[in-house]
């Protein structure tokens, strides 16, 4: 069973999705497909973990990475 998650590009950064997928590599197989308006992540093979919980946690991680990257970019802009 797999979970398909669509991340809107205006809200999530593609680099954040890639970074989160890498961070979750030990818990699930996550295939990331970047598109023009959205990035699609397919979460599967979650072993003995609940697939929905892994998908939710993965979404939180993507959001965290997006916010952290935006804040870092704002700091870099200042100097």
């Amino acid at each position, binding site marked *: 069973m797999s979970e398909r998650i669509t991340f809107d590009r*205006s809200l999530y950064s593609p680099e954040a999705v890639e970074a989160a997928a890498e961070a979750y590599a030990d818990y699930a197989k996550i295939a990331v497909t970047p598109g023009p*308006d959205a990035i699609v992540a397919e979460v599967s093979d979650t072993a003995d973990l609940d697939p*929905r919980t892994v998908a939710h946690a993965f*979404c939180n991680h993507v959001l965290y990475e997006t916010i952290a990257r935006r804040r870092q970019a704002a700091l870099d802009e200042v100097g």
Partner: protein
Amino acid sequence: MPGQPETSESRLGFSLGQDHISFEVDESIYPIEALYGACYLFLERCYVFLSRTPSGPVTVRLTARDTADASALEALAGEFGNELLSQVARLRLSQSTARIREFYTAAALRAAASAPSVDELLAELESEDLLEDPLEIMVPWEEKHGNKPNDSES
């Protein structure tokens, strides 16, 4: 988005699901940076997911980490709304005082750059002629005024 069970309208206007609650956020009132600020604070408490219909408002979906009834989910969404307002206020305040902060930082940096170092102060002190005594502070009283008797003693 992971599994989307059917939803109903809550009494506060939120869309209520079995384990989640969702609502739309108007970006003309709540800037995206404020929304991210509120989301960041809620990542520990629940699962947060943002979505957007093409050129439409942002939809925030909060999913409970454990089992939660309708009132708990409404309370969660209410707290998120309050935090969102707080983040907007902070953002606006930060924007309106940005120039004042820039001015004080620049003034502090200028002052720090022009302040003399300890070595410079010591060199200045050494270069001064400390033997000059225009007020004749180092001259003894007797030398200055002679050995006159004190009027109160006579």
